Each structure stands twice: as structure tokens, then as C-alpha cells.
């Protein structure tokens, strides 16, 4: 009987039970309410009380129901019985699976723990997985940040002690001009959409710098179609214009940055390029009040921003600001000089600079709230410059991305627009001290934990993970002279290096939720060959592969042991302040997941399995003195009871025996039920007087110390000029105790400039630009961004095939009709694609949706599916190594995968070459 046949009132609740939890359909961690009916998920809605999404929910979030019940779910442990790639497995019990893992891992730990490479992909439990790796004793650990956005994180952390996304956000309520750089359809998803709508409703202006006009760029008030890889040059041209006009917030720079610090500018001095410091190690400035050099840390100092000065011993020194002025006023950064290269007119660049200056300096806003600065001085208001910036992978995923991100922060700083009303705002626990902590840990030998967490932030050459011959200690060569500040590791080089035995062979590759044989691999075809390659004895060059995933992805069939994970709706999780928190600029936050339905089949939460493997191996911290599992209750047991430092645990909320402490406090056995009662999140809101200038706000800094975010309540001085980088340049100059090897000196000096500079991506010489004139980039559609959901029944109805988008004029010039087939060719190979013409793409750029094309039969989809027949990957055209095979196709500072440096040409498909997409 149709329910719509009469005018009755509908009174049915969406289900019989509602449980709150945290979404995991992408990386944004929105709060959700999950309605169950007869034990099955009926409806997922946004949690209106949640600080991340405030009640809204995106396409991915609503499609979670089809994620849970996907035909692609893995429901039993599998052991490979045919050759790798054949898809032939036997089902085994969990006991057999765990025994197998133990049998492989125990001898590794007893001999050389680094023979285990443990790399996790879309892992939201890195506080656990990184700790597990260090307890096992391998420093070969990372998550997916190295091929995602480590440049964005590291560039910000080393400059302003924070970055975008989890680290900070535009002041949505006060900003009058927001410039987005390289922000595709997400990063982050719902908060950005909520914020953009809010800004537009207020009549504020949004500018999008992006070669493609879709998504956010489509609703921007101004679209700036920059050439991929040249954003850094555009930013430095904007800086040039602001300096030329003197539109610089000198007061902000003096108060909050190292603009007045003196840099040793003396080629004959052993510390040339480092800061001049007093005997206590405090940086110096030239005090104009006394006409003498003084500690830049003195409260009352009147530091000079310009000029050239000398220390008592005659050492020549110069303020950072003078270096900046000298560097960027160079005519090579003038708009007219960079215009052709960035693909814009000089006038357009000049206008952007004029708009920034107009809003920053003519539309100053004030919030009348009394606050106290780091030195105890009272202020009666927060004064702000309402220009803000947000940037993501479009500037991050280039070999020059680290310096481009640094340049963007430099721009924010000279405008005085960091953590002020209307500007970029930190999200607690950020800002963090600069240079950041901790330093990367290393293996200490058999049967021993590592010296510290595997990922960290080197402060100079002495912190590198290299041996006495300067060779990399890590399998991915992170923290070596190749990629010194590889703060997130280089997952994209693990399979290649393990296969090549470079720097050494490994025994077991353990991975989680990372499709490294397909859309997460650079050079997909050869990566598959590496996974299946054998030595002279017929043994696989990568002997053992353990893979954990909830779905039968392309990666599954190359594993020897497959462990079926649950989805996010079937387990506990912690989104921790120790990892990637959920707060906003007005408060700190963390959250949990709770199981809303039981695990499907034999699937088990990966985190439970990891802790069980750890206790079977007797890893320190995972067993008690008697050798029994320390967390027999699995991950939820760990979440509540594990302490990283006394009183500091995975979760910040409801600590202490009575649950009345936040941040620091004893373990509370009832902590998780408090979270559940509060919608599965905790949020600690800042007082009005703590909300701006957090890097120098006494009440904020005291609170942050109390919470355990920072070690001391001291001003965090923003770093225009980066001394850790200067230390590497010094080593490459042949100065100091840790000299760079001769093979790396030129590279280090060129790319680790302590002031951000723009360098052309690798291989962009005139000849290759002529041969491959177009840039090629990808993005994922909003309904799939950061999701593990290309197989999702509903989401794939929205996108199940991809085309190559080409500017009308570019296609016409090449004799390509709209809808024609074409070869897209790079130095690494070619793929046959269908093109579609559009206006909203820079004429020098082509693009497509990523991760739509699927391997035939993968994800348990029909071999006739459009994804397997009308989808393609650009990954085939992207080398994981540069053509010389010496360096990775990666940023030489951080190792970030340079996906978007790809250059291509298009060629019509000949009459004899027709047929299906390859």
C-alpha cells in the first residue's frame, strides 16, 4: 500500500535507535547521528552540536550506509595461495592469521627491526600506529602524508607554528577577502563549504587561485587561473608589489616575527647565515634606542628593521627584514617579469596586490576585548587585518611546494594577518613552538624500542637519520640528505626502494588502507611489477606483504596475508589531540567513534588487531610485567588507559577520577561514556580574551601549557627567516660539524633557502617544455574526495567514468574535437583518453578526476563496469623517480610527492589506433 496515497501525517521516527559517532567517509571527522532500524543503519545525519560540521553532512557522509553494506567488504582473513596478483586466496581463521603475522615479525624484531616497513594510509590513529612502530623498534614507519600534503604541514609548522586545515582556518566571521590557493573540492570538506557560504552571505570577497574553475573556484568572486607549479612565483610577485609600495605591517613584524633578528652576513664567518646570538643563545637585534646590539628577546628593545650592522667583534650582520626587502624587491619578482611564466597578466597580479593592500590596511577591524600579551602588557582591543588565505594540495603537491607554502606564510606575515581578527587563525593545540618538536626517532637495535617517535622535525643536519657514510637509514630515505625535512615520510617510495634494496632490502611490508598498487602509486604499472618481481631463486623481492583493509581494493591481491578491517561504523576510534584534532579557532576538541553496529562477518578493527599482534610479540607497553596483554579490551581499553606522559592520554576530555579535568588528568575509566553522552566529542572553548594573537597572548599560552599543548608559556616568534634551513645550507657550504656530502651540496643550497624562493619544478627546462607544453593535474570529485568510496553504490552513480578536460582553444589548436579520443603522453608513457572541452581551465593545463578508473574485477565490481572500461588513471604517466633514477619525483626539502609537476602533450588518436581506453 502506497504511503503517499492520503493526507495522513507521518509520525515514524527515522529508526528505533540513534547513536552518535564520528564520520570517516573522508578525513574531516564530522559528527554524525546514526539511526538504526531493526539493527541496520537506516539514516545518517549531521550532528548539529558538533564543532566541525554543525549539523550538515556531505554526499560521502550520507553514502556511509552503502559503505557499510558494500559488496566489496572483506569479511574473513585471507592467505595467498596463487601467485601475487592472481587473486587466489584461502580463507583462514584469525588465529591462523595472527600466528602467521607473528611468525614473520618475531624474527625480524630479534635480528633487525628495520626489516619491517610499516606504512599506513588513510590512518586516523597515527598516535597509536606510530607508537606501535617505535615500540617494535622500526623507524620505517609513516602514514600517507608524504604523498598528500606534507609540504603544507611542514611549510607552515617551520614558519608560523601552524598550517591550514587541522592547524588553522580563516576568520570566517570577520575576513573581508579570502584567497584560496590550490584548494580543490575538499580540504577540509564541510567546514570550508560552511565558511565560504558564510563569507559570501556577509558580502566578503573570495578569490580562488586555481588552474581549474570547478567547486569552490566556481563560486569564487574572482578566478585566477594560474599555471600549476608557479603559485610560489605569483606569491613572491605579490610580495614584491607590497614591498614596493611599503604596504607592510612593520609593527606586526616587529612584535610577532623574527624580522628584527640579526643574521650573520659574513662569508668568512663559520656561522654565516645563522642568527647572531648572545652567550645565552638568545638572538640579537640592533637596538635603535641605544645604538647597540642587544638581545632581541628584551621586552623594551627597539629593533631596527633595516640597515647593515656589526657585532662587537666586527662580524657583519643584517636584520631579517632587510634581507627580505633586498631579496624580493629584485626586479625578477616584478609582476611583468613573472607574468608569462605564471600564465597571468602583469596587471592582474598588480590588481591582486592592490586588493590585498586595500583590505588589509584600509579596512582594519577591531574587536573590543581586553587582553594581555606575553610580556604582561594590557591591550583594550584586538586589531585585525581582514585578509585571509587558505591553501592545500594544489600548491603542496609540487617539488617546489615546501617553499611555496613558506612564501604564502611570508605573505600572511607581512600583511600582519596571522591570528588577528579577519585573518588566518590557529586552531588549538596550534600554534606550536618553532622549530617544532619532536625530533625523529631511530631504531636502537634488536628487541628494543626506538629512541622516539618515528616521525618528527629535524632542526639541523645533526638530526638526520643517516649513517656514518651519510647514507639514509630509513627505507624511504626520509630525514636523509635527499629529503631532510620529510616530516611525514615518503610512502610513495617504499615499494620502489624495498624492491630495489635501496638502501637495503626488507623482509615484511605491512600496510593499512593504502591503495599502493593503483591510484595511490606513482608509476602504477611498474609498481605492480615491483610487487610481483622475484629474485634468482624465484622468491619475491619484497618477501612478505601484510595488508589490512575493509574492502577488496586493487592492493588486496598483491598481499600475502589480508586482514579484514571494519568500517568506521563498527569500531571504536580516537581522534586525538596527539594526532589530528578536530577543534576550531575558538577552542580545542577531540572525538571518538563508537561502534553503532557489530562488525560484519569476521572483520575486526585494525587497531585491536595491531595491539594483539603487539602483545603476542611482547612489545614494551603492550604487555604487563607478567607478559599478558596490557590492553585486553583492545583499542578502547588503550584509548582510555594509555598515557603518553603522566596525565596526558589519547583523549583530553573528562580526565581525572571524577571526569572533571580537561587536557591533563589521571585516567578515568568512565571517559568513553562521557564522550558518548556528549555526542562522542569534547570541546574546550577559549575565553574571548584568548582567541587572537595566540602566539603572543599570555592567557592563551598559559592555558595551552596547562593543557599540555606547549612545554612553556612563552611567546612563539614567527619565523620569516628559517634557521633550521640555514643550518642545512651552512652544511652544504662546508661549514660546521655536520657537512653535507659533496653529492648533495648544490641541491641543498638551491632548495633549502632560509627565505622562500621559487624554483622551477624538476625537468621544466626549455626543451622539455617545448616537447610537453601542457601541465596535467587531477582532483577528486567532492563526493569522493579523501574517501575510500569509489565502489560506493550511490557515489559511483554520480561519477563512474572520467574524461580529460581541455581548454577549447587548446583543443582547437591541436585539431581535437570535443569528445574526441586522444593520446596523453608524458616522458613516462601514454594513455588513451576521451577529451572534453571547457572554458574553466587554464589553456596551459589539462585535468581529470582521479581514482575513478579501476582495475577490472577489483572492488568486486563487474568487469563490464564503466570504471574498468571508461576510466583511466594519470598515475601511469607520473614517475616515482626523476629520469636520472637518483632522486624521487619529490620535493627536495620534504620528499612530498610531486604529482602536479606532470607535463604532457596531446595527440589525436590515429584511425588505426581506435578502440577502448587503455
Amino acid at each position: 500500500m502506497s504511503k503517499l496515497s492520503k493526507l495522513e501525517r507521518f509520525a515514524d521516527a527515522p529508526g528505533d535507535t540513534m547513536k552518535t559517532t564520528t564520520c570517516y567517509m573522508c578525513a574531516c571527522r564530522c559528527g554524525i547521528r546514526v539511526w538504526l532500524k531493526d539493527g541496520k543503519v537506516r539514516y545518517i545525519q549531521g550532528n548539529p552540536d558538533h564543532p566541525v560540521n554543525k549539523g550538515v553532512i556531505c554526499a560521502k557522509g550520507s553514502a556511509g550506509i552503502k559503505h557499510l553494506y558494500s559488496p566489496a567488504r572483506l569479511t574473513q582473513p585471507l592467505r595467498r595461495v596463487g601467485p601475487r596478483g592472481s587473486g587466489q586466496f584461502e580463507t583462514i581463521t584469525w588465529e591462523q592469521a595472527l600466528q602467521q603475522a607473528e611468525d614473520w615479525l618475531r624474527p625480524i624484531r630479534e635480528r633487525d627491526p628495520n626489516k619491517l616497513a610499516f606504512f599506513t594510509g588513510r590512518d586516523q590513529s597515527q598516535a597509536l600506529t606510530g607508537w606501535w612502530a617505535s615500540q617494535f623498534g622500526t623507524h620505517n614507519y609513516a602514514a600517507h602524508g608524504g604523498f598528500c600534503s606534507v609540504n603544507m604541514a611542514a611549510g607552515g609548522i617551520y614558519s608560523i607554528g601552524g598550517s591550514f586545515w587541522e592547524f588553522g582556518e580563516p576568520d570566517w566571521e570577520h575576513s573581508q577577502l579570502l584567497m584560496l590557493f590550490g584548494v580543490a573540492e575538499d580540504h577540509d570538506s564541510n567546514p570550508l563549504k560552511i565558511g565560504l557560504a558564510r563569507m559570501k552571505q556577509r558580502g566578503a570577497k573570495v578569490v580562488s587561485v586555481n588552474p581549474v574553475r570547478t567547486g569552490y573556484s566556481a563560486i569564487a568572486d574572482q578566478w585566477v587561473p594560474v599555471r600549476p607549479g608557479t603559485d610560489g612565483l605569483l606569491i613572491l610577485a605579490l610580495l614584491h608589489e607590497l614591498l614596493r609600495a611599503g604596504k607592510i605591517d612593520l609593527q606586526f613584524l616587529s612584535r610577532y616575527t623574527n624580522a628584527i633578528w640579526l643574521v650573520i652576513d659574513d662569508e668568512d664567518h663559520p656561522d654565516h647565515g645563522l642568527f647572531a646570538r648572545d652567550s645565552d643563545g638568545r638572538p640579537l637585534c640592533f637596538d635603535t634606542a641605544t645604538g647597540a646590539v642587544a638581545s632581541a628577546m628584551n621586552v623594551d628593545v627597539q629593533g631596527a628593521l633595516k640597515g647593515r650592522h656589526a657585532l662587537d667583534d666586527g662580524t657583519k650582520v643584517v636584520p631579517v627584514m632587510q634581507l627580505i626587502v633586498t631579496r624580493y624587491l629584485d626586479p625578477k619578482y616584478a609582476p611583468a617579469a613573472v607574468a608569462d611564466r605564471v600564465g597571468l597578466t602583469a596587471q592582474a597580479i598588480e590588481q591582486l596586490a592592490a586588493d590585498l593592500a586595500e583590505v588589509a590596511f584600509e579596512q582594519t577591524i577591531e574587536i573590543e576585548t581586553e587582553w594581555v600579551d606575553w610580556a604582561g602588557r594590557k591591550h583594550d582591543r584586538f586589531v585585525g587585518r581582514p585578509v585571509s588565505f587558505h591553501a592545500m594540495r594544489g600548491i603542496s603537491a609540487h617539488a617546489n611546494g615546501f617553499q611555496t607554502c613558506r612564501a604564502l606564510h611570508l605573505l600572511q606575515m607581512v600583511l600582519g594577518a596571522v591570528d588577528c581578527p579577519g585573518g588566518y587563525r590557529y586552531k588549538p593545540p596550534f600554534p606550536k613552538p618553532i622549530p617544532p618538536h619532536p625530533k625523529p626517532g631511530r631504531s636502537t637495535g634488536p628487541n628494543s624500542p626506538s629512541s622516539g617517535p618515528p616521525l618528527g622535525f629535524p632542526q639541523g643536519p645533526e638530526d638526520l637519520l643517516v649513517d656514518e657514510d651519510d647514507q639514509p637509514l630509513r627505507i624511504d630515505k626520509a630525514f636523509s640528505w635527499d629529503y631532510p625535512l620529510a616530516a611525514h615520510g615518503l610512502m610513495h617510495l617504499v615499494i620502489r626502494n624495498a624492491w630495489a634494496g635501496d638502501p637495503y632490502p626488507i623482509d615484511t611490508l605491512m600496510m593499512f588502507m593504502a591503495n599502493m598498487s593503483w591510484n595511490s602509486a606513482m608509476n602504477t604499472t611498474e609498481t605492480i611489477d615491483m610487487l610481483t618481481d622475484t629474485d634468482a631463486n624465484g622468491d619475491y623481492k619484497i618477501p612478505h606483504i601484510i595488508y589490512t583493509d575493509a574492502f577488496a581494493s586493487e592492493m588486496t591481491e598483491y598481499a600475502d596475508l589480508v586482514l579484514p578491517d571494519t568500517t568506521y561504523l563498527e569500531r571504536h576510534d580516537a581522534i586525538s589531540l596527539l594526532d589530528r584534532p578536530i577543534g576550531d579557532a575558538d577552542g580545542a576538541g577531540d572525538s571518538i567513534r563508537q561502534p553503532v553496529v557489530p562488525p560484519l562477518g569476521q572483520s575486526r578493527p585494525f587497531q585491536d588487531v595491531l595491539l594483539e599482534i603487539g602483545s603476542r610479540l611482547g612489545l614494551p607497553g603492550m604487555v604487563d610485567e607478567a607478559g599478558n596483554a596490557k590492553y585486553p579490551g583492545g583499542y578502547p581499553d588503550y584509548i582510555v588507559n594509555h598515557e603518553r606522559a603522566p596525565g596526558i592520554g589519547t583523549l583530553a576530555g573528562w580526565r581525572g577520577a571524577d571526569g572533571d579535568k580537561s587536557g591533563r588528568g589521571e585516567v578515568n575509566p568512565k571517559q568513553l561514556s562521557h564522550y558518548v553522552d556528549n555526542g562522542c566529542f569534547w570541546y574546550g572553548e577559549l575565553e574571548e580574551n584568548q582567541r587572537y594573537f595566540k602566539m603572543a597572548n599570555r592567557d592563551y599560552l598559559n592555558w595551552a601549557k596547562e593543557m599540555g599543548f606547549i612545554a612553556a608559556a612563552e611567546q612563539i616568534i614567527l619565523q620569516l627567516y628559517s634557521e633550521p634551513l640555514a643550518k642545512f645550507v651552512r652544511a652544504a657550504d662546508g661549514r660546521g660539524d655536520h657537512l653535507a656530502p659533496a653529492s648533495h651540496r648544490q641541491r641543498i643550497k638551491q632548495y633549502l633557502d632560509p627565505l622562500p624562493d621559487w624554483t622551477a619544478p624538476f625537468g621544466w627546462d626549455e626543451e622539455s617544455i617545448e616537447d610537453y607544453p601542457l601541465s596535467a593535474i587531477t582532483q577528486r570529485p567532492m563526493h569522493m574526495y579523501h574517501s575510500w568510496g569509489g565502489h560506493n553504490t550511490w557515489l559511483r552513480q554520480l561519477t563512474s567514468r572520467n574524461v580529460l578536460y581541455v581548454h577549447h582553444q587548446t583543443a582547437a589548436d591541436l585539431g581535437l574535437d570535443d569528445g574526441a579520443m586522444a593520446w596523453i603522453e608524458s616522458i613516462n608513457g601514454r594513455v588513451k583518453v576521451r577529451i572534453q572541452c571547457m572554458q574553466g581551465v587554464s589553456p596551459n593545463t589539462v585535468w581529470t578526476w582521479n581514482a575513478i578508473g579501476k582495475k577490472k574485477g577489483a572492488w568486486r565490481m563487474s568487469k563490464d563496469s564503466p570504471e574498468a572500461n571508461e576510466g583511466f588513471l594519470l598515475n601511469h604517466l607520473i614517475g616515482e623517480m626523476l629520469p636520472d633514477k637518483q632522486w624521487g619525483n619529490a620535493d627536495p626539502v620534504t620528499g612530498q610527492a610531486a604529482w602536479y609537476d606532470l607535463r604532457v602533450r596531446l595527440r589525436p588518436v590515429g584511425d588505426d589506433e581506435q578502440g577502448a581506453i587503455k
Partner: protein
Amino acid sequence: MTDLPTTTTRRLGLVIDLDTCVGCHACAVSCKEWNDGGAAGPLPDSNDAKPDGVWFNRVHSYEVEREGTFSTLNFPRSCLHCEDAACVTVCPTGASFKRAADGIVLVDEDKCIGCKLCSWACPYGAREYSESRGVMQKCTLCVDRIDNPSLAEADRVPACVASCPADARHFGDLSDPDSAVSKLVAEREGVDLMPELGYKPTNKYLPPRQVPPPSQSALPEATPDWLDQVFGR
């Protein structure tokens, strides 16, 4: 063949803001999820090799040209609950009907014979035929939400409105000039879709706002002493 009510007490409908719609499909999938398990469900999905299904709400992205300038427009499309709904008058069985109380156009599946005349009559492509169920399906404005006492008051809006991250969808009574949606339409000069066809759609679209022109001049040169200033910490 099926009569429309002569008047309706209210005219419930959607106001869709094309200025902030980013084309994320949040509305479409939330609609699919709610209605698949709700009073108008199920909304069947076709097979694996041909991924398609019944959707009450679809989002399209177009490039549009105005006076030589191109822009990208994201355009959500669903039933407009027309005052003069040809899909109802064309219905031979009375399956399609318009509620006199609030103007919502619905399909009584028990009476629907799947003849598809209504989908031919609708110029907006708002009706979706379910092959597997043999009936016509369409947007109900979430009749099982909007006055459902078991839902929290804030949730008594269509699922698409509740989900929209960009605040681009609004729901209310467009017959009441004092309603929030009517005021929004007046303020933003909301428009009917293809008014020349005469179906008097209830839903309104808010056009993208005009962009303020960028500044026209480059910055002037600084005075030579601009960097001489000194500030304390």
C-alpha cells in the same frame, strides 16, 4: 485528466541559492538516503555494470556565458511543485496529485500504471521512472519529515535542506510574503525556472551575485623612508 486543487492553503517549496552551491551533491545523496528508507522508498539502484538509479534530486554543472564572460554554474534539479502542474493534469489515473493543504505534488504508487505521461509533461525532468518497480517516483519535499512530530523541530525540513553544507537550500511557505523564504526571494531577486512555459513553479532559484570589480590601479611607490620606522616588541 486529474484535477488540480483550485487553491492551496500554503505553497511549500525550496529556494535554491546558485551563488553558494558548490555542486557537492550533498543534497542529492542525503535525499536518496532518506527517501530510500522512507515513505517514498525504495529508490532502486540498477546493476553494477550500469551504475544508475532513481534520484529525486540531481546536481548538474554547466559553463554559462554572459556577455563573453564564462562562469561555472552548479545547478540542483528536483520537482518544483508547480502551481499549474501539468504532470498532474496529464495523469490518467489520479496517481499524480497536488495536496490542497500545502501544494506538494505526490504520486500515489497504488494508482500509478507507469505510463510515463507525467514525465513527458514535465519540462524540468523532475520525475524518475523506476524500471524495477514499474512506477513513477519523485521528490515529495520529504512529506515524512516536514511535519513529523517524532523528529526534532529543526529536522522538520527536507533532507536536502538539512544536509546542505553551503547553506544553499531553504524551505518554507512561498505563499506567505512574510516567510523567511519569501523575504529571501524578494531580497535576492529570486527567479522561476523557465517561467515562459507557464507552469508557475513554486521553487525559486537565487541567481549568483554580481562580482564587485577588482581595483583598477597598481599600488603607488612607497616613500624612501618607509623602512626607517621602529616599533617595540
